[in-house]
């Protein structure tokens, strides 16, 4: 694993759009003066006539995307998660969600791993916000392979999709050849019987690493990757709850309203077992190097190991 290639999913976003632009001539990309950072600049270079820079005006960008979708185009509206889901929330709700328009939102720079820019740009609330919009599909890919597959799946899906990408380069652990993305279906990456770690985004690889470490300490941990947070794969969660009796969730997002909450909703309703949430604990972030920050906030394999051990001990 040491020599694993690392890549930020925002890079995957830009590259995938540029690749898919040939196949899907109805695909348009919108930006709010962040094409260099969202990496859609790659698309812009290849398809200048199909890239629309809306300037620093995210609210209008979302409305323009709605208008494009209402007239049959497939727009990808790109910005940082903070502005796409945060600033433009009400436009996403009323102009995209309510009429269920075919807009794809590419939200990059999600989570604490934005790093040095600090709290104003570290969006740990976007999943929570987007989950509350009826009919909104939410995808949070775990690596480059999954991100690319998810983007094509989103194009082929009719309806609004919120896609979450990261700034930090993270390990590409999925196998490009064998990987299959199925919207709304979780992926069991490792079986286990004592506990299930349900993770999303960059925490999936951390969860896998943690599970291997736990194995050597005699704890059998199942690992599930939930790339589609809404609609969530209830079946795989209920099965895990029944078979392992304990769930630990891991996400680079607030513990309020994100994956942990979504999993808890399912478990509470169908098979109540203890759910321990790893995430950002209702605090703002701060500036620092991304990897160091992830450790500070417990968003790393070491903390997953520690949390799982405590939870298993208390079982």
């Amino acid at each position, binding site marked *: 694993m040491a020599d694993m290639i690392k890549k930020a999913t925002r890079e995957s976003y830009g590259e995938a759009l540029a690749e898919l632009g040939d196949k899907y001539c109805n695909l*348009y990309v919108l930006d709010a003066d962040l094409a260099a950072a969202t990496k859609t600049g790659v698309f812009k270079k290849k398809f200048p*006539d*199909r890239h*629309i820079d*809306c*300037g620093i*005006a995210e*609210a*209008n*960008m*979302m*409305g*323009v*995307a*709605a*208008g*494009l*979708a*209402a*007239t*049959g*185009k497939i*727009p990808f509206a790109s910005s940082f998660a903070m502005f796409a889901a945060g600033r433009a929330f*009400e*436009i996403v709700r*009323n*102009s995209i969600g*309510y*009429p*269920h328009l075919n807009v794809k939102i590419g939200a990059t720079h999600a989570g604490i791993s934005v790093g040095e820019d600090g709290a104003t740009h570290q969006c740990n609330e976007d999943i929570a916000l987007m989950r509350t919009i009826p009919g909104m599909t939410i995808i949070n890919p775990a690596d480059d392979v999954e991100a690319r597959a998810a983007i094509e799946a989103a194009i082929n899906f009719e309806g609004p999709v919120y896609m979450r990408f990261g700034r930090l380069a993270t390990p590409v652990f999925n196998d490009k050849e064998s990987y299959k993305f199925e919207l709304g279906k979780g992926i069991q990456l490792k079986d286990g019987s004592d506990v299930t770690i349900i993770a999303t985004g960059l925490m999936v690889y951390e969860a896998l690493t943690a599970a291997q470490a736990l194995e050597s300490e005699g704890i059998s941990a199942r690992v599930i990757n939930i790339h589609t947070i809404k609609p969530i794969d209830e079946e795989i969660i209920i099965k895990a709850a029944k078979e392992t009796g304990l769930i630990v969730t891991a996400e680079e997002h607030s513990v309020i309203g994100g994956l942990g909450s979504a999993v808890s909703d399912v478990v509470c309703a169908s098979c109540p077992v203890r759910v321990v949430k790893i995430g950002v604990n209702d605090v703002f972030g701060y500036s620092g190097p991304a990897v160091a920050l992830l450790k500070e906030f417990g968003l790393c394999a070491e903390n997953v190991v520690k949390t799982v051990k405590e939870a298993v001990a208390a079982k």
Partner: protein
Amino acid sequence: MDELLKKQLMKTACKVRMGIIEGVYNAKSGHPGGSLSIADVMTYLYFAKMNIYPDNPKCPDRDRFVLSKGHTAPALYSTLANRGYFPLEELKGLRHIGSMLQGHPDMKHIPGVDMSSGSLGQGISAACGMALSAKLTGDTYKVYAILGDGEIEEGQVWEAAMFAAHNKLDNLVAIVDNNGLQIDGKISDVCSPYPITDKFEAFGWHVITMDAHDFDSIEAAFNEAESVVNQPVAIVMTSVKGKGVSFMENQVSWHGTAPNQEQYEKAMSELKASLEELEG
């Protein structure tokens, strides 16, 4: 304007106003004032101007209409019903459970509604998207949007204004309904958006002014709009909130209040009298 057409439009506008009152009265809520102020321009657009297909409301080459001031949905619904998109009888279901006529326009369920709207400042952005969409693929349809004069206090309107001018959206016409009143009072007292014409000009729009209740003025404005190239067009129309119902005219209290039975009957008899006079 051709006198015969003018008379026909005036009669239709009268019927549109009756539909507004009918809807709002039956709903026991809604926004009659700003609906009545746009009744004439709505009539002009749907009965004389726009390329539309009431029997095939989603026809791709149709002109698009976005009611950015979505709370005046009764005007849109009454116009659509009078134009044959759905039965007039539907208007009585406005705002009722089980009716397709939601309090604010819903494109998913109402034939002829091109964009859901209601949260102010958003419709104009969608209209920009539609106009840009036509430009991107060489489509020839035009996009019309109506905004309230209070609505333009929303910052998003000016994001859209910048965007439309930057992208030279000359297939977009935004109509600002300048009736001078918003919920909390006169727009000049609340948080003045004046001078409206200068603002749109400064943002790079071609600006035209018109009298919202004079079909000659309306036709002249839209004809001028047609000739503009490389710029979006803003038509700032001077209107009377509550126009056509004497006791509602220029009264801010009729922004969002439904008439009681007595007021309903008085309003309908006034409109009926106006219609009879035109038909006489």
